[in-house]
């Protein structure tokens, strides 16, 4: 079978729009949730109160060890049967966001553990309050350290946005599938979708690796 350029030209605009609107949009929205919620979870895990730290730990473990498709079904269909109806898009953003928040919690944890003990002690010696200690001294240093790892997480999130097709979110791969089902010809749509993905994720990965190398100095 030969490549059909006319068909390819037809599908490209829709695929690109779906990519920019949905794939990137979802990555951004879910990414924000992951970064913010991840910190909350990491702090929860560090809590001195066992009633907070243990359940948080197991919650993170549970979400991290179970597949995203099932989590999507659970939120989209399962909660609907209990009366909570969310759109497929919101479901997708929430599930991806929470799932990757659990990964980010680990990234934050490693970053926080890497802060030298002396920094904490200097804050105590200066009588800084816990809030000030975190805001002015610890978190700024943590953020600097974890940028490469966090970036890798966001890239991984980006690559898992196609999972959302299982609940019918109209992102790029879904649109490609629609084209294929309608015309019985999957080659052009899926290949182009793959290439768009590659075009987005490869340079980003290279950038991330370079950033990591520079920060390691």
């Amino acid at each position: 079978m030969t490549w059909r350029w006319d068909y390819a030209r037809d599908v490209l605009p829709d695929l690109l729009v779906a990519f920019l609107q949905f794939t990137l949009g979802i990555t951004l929205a879910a990414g924000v949730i992951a970064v913010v919620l991840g910190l909350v979870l990491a702090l929860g895990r560090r809590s001195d109160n066992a009633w907070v730290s243990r359940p948080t730990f197991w919650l993170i473990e549970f979400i991290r060890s179970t597949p995203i498709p099932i989590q999507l079904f659970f939120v989209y269909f399962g909660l609907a049967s209990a009366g909570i109806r969310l759109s497929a898009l919101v479901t997708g953003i929430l599930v991806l966001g929470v799932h990757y928040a659990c990964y980010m919690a680990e990234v934050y944890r490693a970053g926080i553990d890497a802060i030298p003990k002396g920094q904490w002690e200097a804050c105590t010696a200066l009588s800084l309050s816990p809030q000030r200690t975190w805001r002015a001294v610890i978190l700024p240093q943590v953020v600097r350290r974890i940028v490469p790892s966090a970036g890798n997480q966001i890239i991984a999130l980006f690559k898992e946005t196609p999972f959302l097709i299982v609940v019918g979110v109209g992102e790029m791969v879904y649109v490609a599938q629609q084209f294929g089902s309608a015309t019985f010809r999957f080659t052009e749509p899926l290949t182009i979708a793959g290439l768009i993905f590659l075009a987005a994720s490869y340079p980003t990965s290279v950038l991330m690796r370079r950033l990591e190398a520079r920060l390691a100095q």
Partner: protein
Amino acid sequence: MLNELLDAAPFFLRGAGTSLLYTATGAVAALVISFIFGLMSMSPSIWVRGTVRVVVEFFRGTSLVIQLLWIFYVLPELGIRFEPLAAATIALGLNFGAYGAEVVRGAVNAVPKAQWEATVSLGLGKVHRMRRIILPQAIPEMIPPFGNLLIQMLKSSSLLFLIAVTELTYQVNQLRTDIGSLPAFITALIVYFVIAQGLIAFMRLWEKRAAAKVGRRPKPVDVTMQGTMAVPSGGAG
């Protein structure tokens, strides 16, 4: 509801079994490909290294979903038809093999340079050096990241219903009508969770044993994500 749950149990278990089967075949394929790509990426020839680099970046840069759909829907249009099991094994093997290649490379690089120098001073040949000295020391380093990838693969097996594999996710969807959506999905989540914890425990044990053989203390296996596999120094930060 307990009755319905018990009635559904055999289907669940069959689905879980299928998930495990596909995870296992995918894992074996990925392991083999990891070593091939990983060792090739350390070749002195720049052509070999470059080619491997391109292939690895390709499979890491595109989504598993796309790869699965491509193998299942596009290849037939080009004349190559794979059974679901073969398609799944190839897709999982190549995707996770690409990530695993980094793990192999990183672990081999982590073996202290002094070991390489010792083999040179003893006049050991390249293959002998790899087989008997370097790889045995590299392997304990590989087990935690491979363990993480294995858990990832287990989770990814959930996608296989997209290519007509009747694994656990497929079964769960079928069973929603019998036992209700919420119970069905919660049960599925618990089953995956239990299997994952079992795999983690197994990996920890294996790593402990392997590390002891080379006189080292084991690192914890921890369910982190493929993104962090991008760099050999690996790990979340």
